C-alpha cells in the first residue's frame, strides 16, 4: 500500500469513527424518530427557556 493510500485510509477511518461516536453519544435519536411516528402516537414537543 502506498503512503498516500495509507493516509487516506486513516483519515476516512478517523472521520467514520468520529461520525459514529457523534451519532451514538450526541444525536437525539428519540426526538428524530418521533417526527416519523403517526401523529396520534407522537410525543408532544414542549418548548421552554431556562427561566421561571
Amino acid at each position, binding site marked *: 500500500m502506498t503512503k498516500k493510500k495509507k493516509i487516506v485510509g486513516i483519515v476516512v477511518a478517523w472521520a467514520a469513527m468520529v461520525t459514529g461516536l457523534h451519532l451514538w453519544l450526541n444525536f437525539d435519536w428519540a426526538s428524530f424518530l418521533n417526527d416519523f411516528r403517526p401523529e396520534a402516537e407522537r410525543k408532544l414537543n414542549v*418548548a421552554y427557556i*431556562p427561566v*421561571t
Partner: protein
Amino acid sequence: MFQGFPEIKEALISNRMQAGFLVAPMAVALRSQGVPIKIIYLGHRYGSAAVVRKDGPIKTAADLKGRTIAIPNRFSDERLMAGLVLRKHGLSEKDVHMVEMAPPDVASALAANAVDMFVMGEPYPSQAEMAGFGRVLFFAKDYWPDYMSCVLVVRQDVIEQRREAVQLLVDGIARSGIWLDEGRPHREYAAEFVGRYYYRQPPALLKWALTKPLDRVMYSPLTPLKKDFDMVNDLMVEAGLIPRKLAFEDYVDGSFAEGAQGLGAWKFNPGDTTAE
C-alpha cells in the same frame, strides 16, 4: 430548550412545538391576534424579581426616574410589574427607558453598568446576587399577590385531538410542583438534575433560586384563575398591548387543570430510579 420567548412563539405557530411555556401576556396577546392556542396551566407562582447594583444609587423604586430597566419582553409580566411599581411610586413608564433583553444576558448587563436594573425571572436575579454585585430591590410578590409569569400553552388542534397526552403532561407538572413544594431536600435535588440535564446551568445557582428563601418560586397551586388573568388583561390594556380585555374562556381552557385536581406529589426520593 430555547433562548427567548419570541422563538417559542414562532415554533408554536409553525407546529414545530405543540406546547410551550410562554410569559402570560404574550400568550394572551397571541390569542387576541387569533393564534389558535390556549393557556391550560401555569408554570409556577412568583419567581421574578427586580435587581439593582448593590453599590449603586438606586435604593428604592422612587429612584428609578431616568434609569434604564431591562425586561425580557414588552409582552411580559415583568414589564407589567415594572409599570405597576413605577406608578405606585409616582412615576410612569415614560420616566424610564425600558429595553428588551434575552434573559441570560441581563446579569452581565447589570454588572457592566449597561442597565441600572433588570426585572427578570429566576435564576437571573439569583445569579446577580450570588456573584455579589446584585441586590434584589423587590420581589414580584411584594407588589403582586399570587404573581404568575410563565404559563403552559398548547395548540388548539392538539387540545382537540390529543386530550389524553395533554392531560398526562398537566398531571406530570401538577405532581412535580407539589413534590417540589414539599421542602428543601426535594428542591436541592431538583436543582442538581435540572441544572445538569435540562437548564445546563450550575446546580448551585438553581439551589440558590429555589431555596433563598423557599417561597422565592412556588409550584402550587398552578390552576389558571380568572382573577389573576383579569389583572394581567387590565394591565395589558393600560399598557396598550391589547385593544380590549378578552373573555377568560377565549384564551384559557381550564379542563386539564380540573382533571389534575386532587393529584398528589410524585412518590420519589433522591436516589430513586423511578417515580410513581
